[in-house]
């Protein structure tokens, strides 16, 4: 029985993968594609289908494990965000050479405009090196359809497929038609397991060159045999526009609204690599000008220019009109077309009477977040060491980077511990502390730390262990269930000094940090402190019985709790007086611990508190 359901871009991938009989998913969570794995997991449970999930600790492992499954004949899905491709680049470069047995799709979430990432890196430039077919859907429904199609293409040519989905489409919604009864024809793992293939899988010496040659031939064949594109409006027009991904909708609607039907021939490529040369030649054959409108760098424009070089007499434009950075917006395309055709109709500009600036909300930690306390203490300790020059604090991406002003750099994962190594190796007198979350630590930080041990560096690293990969949807981390013994692990790899503290005990934290600063060698302060969003039910019950407040008589108006701890639950009143918003406060107790005047007190309903504490149930 088919049913129309409302899904977002992530859910569309999951549904299509499920209906395509995918039996292996590996991923490293990252926005905007962080909801694919949970949705597929939900579907596998709902329909009682056997799917293996590999919650890999980085994208390198995610890719290789899916390759292993694919070589055993399973259809596999790998999910990562754009920057994850850097980590996966090494195995991705071999995937085309070995080829696949079971169909394999790598879904990469892109982020033009960096709406949910530290950077908007354009992953398209990997494509000519990897030589995989690449799909770019223009709508949620197309995500669903192209995901299915990619498995067929992957198995036909024994190559993995890539799909790039921008954040705007991942979070868009549409209806798709799915089967609510038996959606899959395969509910078991494949019976055919790994078959040896020396020539393909042992990629050394002359074989690696032969495999590379075969890969080029395959991609050429795919280009000859496949065109996946759609075209609209006037075929006879002298002006062509070519798009890929999200810019298609902006152009389509602009043409309709401006009534440019007769003036423009629009072509969108869904399969953006490899392109069929004859198809491109055919499109441009009667054109004077072709404008390629695409987000980020001019990947499509470059390809088209390469294909047409010496073959067509047509002007190709693109990045000379649209920037290679930021997201190309609907307004940019609409206004460009108005200008291009010199219309005098009302331009889409804002009302000039509304010229005020609205202050941006800077990133903040949630109320009760362990990282707030951490950075408060780190700042405090660093200030005390300021006499030896400005201290340096290396930051890491994830929740610990939410208030961006807290660290001296925020770049890729583990940039904190990595860059710090070069700085300390130069023997700076400055105090250098690198920070990183538990997710980052297991993603690549551990290797950086071992490298520091190997090079006998003088490095102080703080692991901010909130027990989850919180930023991307609270996926489990190796520390979530206390399954990783961090002290044993760090001692075993040769770290000189390891201390453990708790973010919600500022005094202990400060003492231990001071102690490690005095030591030399590789030092790690492991800071426990559960993410405020993942508190247990019991904690929440206790919360309602504890009412912190600021005692005005004791408050010295030093503003430390407000301006330095920066807890959003502490609200400024007139004349530098403060109060605690009980609705927002998470009862973490940090403001109480750090107030130098003892002005934060609590009213506690002791009778009920004991009842809750000693009742059975979740801790």
């Amino acid at each position, binding site marked *: 029985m088919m049913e129309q359901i409302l899904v977002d871009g992530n859910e569309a991938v999951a549904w299509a993968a499920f209906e395509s009989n995918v039996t292996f998913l590996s991923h490293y969570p990252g926005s905007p594609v962080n909801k694919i794995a949970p949705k597929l997991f939900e579907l596998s449970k709902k329909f009682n289908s056997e799917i293996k999930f590999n919650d890999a600790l980085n994208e390198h492992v995610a890719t290789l494990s899916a390759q292993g499954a694919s070589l055993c004949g399973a259809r596999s899905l790998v999910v990562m965000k754009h920057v994850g491709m850097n980590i996966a680049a090494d195995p991705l470069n071999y995937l085309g050479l070995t080829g696949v047995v079971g169909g394999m799709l790598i879904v990469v979430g892109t982020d033009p405009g960096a709406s949910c990432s530290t950077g908007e890196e354009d992953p398209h430039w990997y494509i000519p090196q990897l030589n995989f077919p690449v799909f770019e859907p223009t709508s949620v429904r197309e995500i669903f359809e192209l995901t299915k199609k990619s498995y067929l293409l992957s198995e036909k040519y024994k190559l993995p497929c890539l799909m790039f989905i921008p954040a*705007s489409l991942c979070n868009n919604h549409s209806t798709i038609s799915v089967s609510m009864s038996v959606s899959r024809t395969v509910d078991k793992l494949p019976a055919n397991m790994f078959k040896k293939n020396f020539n393909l899988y042992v990629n050394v010496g002359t074989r690696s060159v032969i495999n590379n040659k075969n890969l080029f031939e395959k991609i050429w064949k795919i280009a000859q045999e496949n065109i996946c594109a759609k075209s609209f409006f006037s075929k006879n027009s002298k002006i062509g526009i070519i798009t890929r991904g999200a810019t298609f909708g902006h152009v389509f*609607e602009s043409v309709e609204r*401006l009534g440019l039907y007769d003036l423009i021939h629009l072509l969108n490529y869904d399969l953006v690599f490899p392109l069929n040369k004859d198809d491109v030649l055919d499109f441009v054959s009667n054109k004077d000008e072709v404008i390629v409108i695409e987000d980020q760098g001019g990947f499509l424009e470059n390809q088209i220019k390469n294909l047409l070089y010496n073959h067509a007499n047509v002007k190709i434009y693109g990045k000379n009109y649209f920037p290679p950075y930021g997201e190309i917006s609907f307004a940019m395309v609409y206004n460009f077309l108005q200008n291009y055709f010199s219309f005098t*109709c009302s331009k*889409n500009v804002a*009302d000039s009477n509304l010229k005020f600036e609205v202050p941006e*909300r800077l990133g903040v930690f949630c109320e009760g977040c362990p990282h707030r306390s951490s950075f408060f203490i780190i700042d405090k300790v660093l200030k005390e060491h300021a006499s030896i020059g400005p201290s340096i604090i290396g930051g890491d991406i994830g929740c610990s980077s939410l208030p961006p002003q807290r660290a001296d750099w925020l770049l890729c994962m583990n940039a904190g511990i990595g860059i710090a190594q070069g700085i300390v190796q130069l023997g700076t007198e400055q105090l250098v502390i690198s920070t990183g979350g538990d997710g980052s630590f297991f993603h690549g930080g551990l290797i950086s730390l071992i490298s520091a041990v190997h090079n006998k560096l003088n490095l102080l690293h703080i692991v901010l262990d909130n027990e989850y990969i919180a930023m991307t949807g609270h996926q489990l981390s190796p520390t979530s269930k206390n399954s990783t013994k961090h002290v044993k692990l760090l001692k075993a790899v040769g770290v000189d000094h390891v201390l453990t503290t708790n973010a919600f005990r500022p005094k202990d934290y400060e003492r231990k940090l001071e102690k490690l600063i005095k030591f030399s060698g590789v030092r790690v302060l492991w800071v426990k402190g559960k993410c405020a*969003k993942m508190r247990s039910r019991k904690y929440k019950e206790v919360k309602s019985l504890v009412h912190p407040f600021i005692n005005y008589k004791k408050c010295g108006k030093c503003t430390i709790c407000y301006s330095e701890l920066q807890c959003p639950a502490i609200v400024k009143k007139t004349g530098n007086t403060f109060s605690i918003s009980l609705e927002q406060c998470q009862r973490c107790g940090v403001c109480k611990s750090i107030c130098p005047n003892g002005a934060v007190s609590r009213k506690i309903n002791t009778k009920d508190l004991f009842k809750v504490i000693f009742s059975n149930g979740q801790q």
Partner: protein
Amino acid sequence: MKIKKNNINIIIAGIGGQGVGHLSRCLWTLVVRSGHNVHGSFVKGGAQSLGSIYSTMRIFVDKNIQYENYSHQILENDLDLLIALEPYESLRYKNFFNDETKIICSTNIVKPWVGPLENCLFEDPVAVLFSCGRDVIAKDFQALAIQKHNNVKAAGLEMMIIAMENNFIPYNAKEIKEIYWSSLKTF
């Protein structure tokens, strides 16, 4: 040249934790159930809570329109309805207002954390909104939600009901209530 428009453009804005995502998904569901088409986007940004969040919705009542070929974004000056759960967040979308734009805004102010730049805050953001000269319905919907449902997050629902009762969008308040409460756990 005549500029054509065949859809209803809505922005729902607020800050993390106010239920913008849930409310948007409820309206999306209602639109689809009513036999119309909708697309748009939900933009959460990097922050976990207290960051600006918004969703855009473009509703196509005419089934024959190839809505999936349309942009998921809304053009400046082309907004029909703004539901803002916080006054600063209503002002953030001022460039999308046109003379006809309807605005429903909750007056409960959550000052943006701006660090030392406190003088960039407005003395009264609600007054600034009224000074924009648009059709504004403003009241403390959070207080209303607590009073009616003992649930501050239901503020968005109350605002949506107002939008429907005033015929800003062609849907039934009873149905949105039903979807909202029945989907609290599933969305």
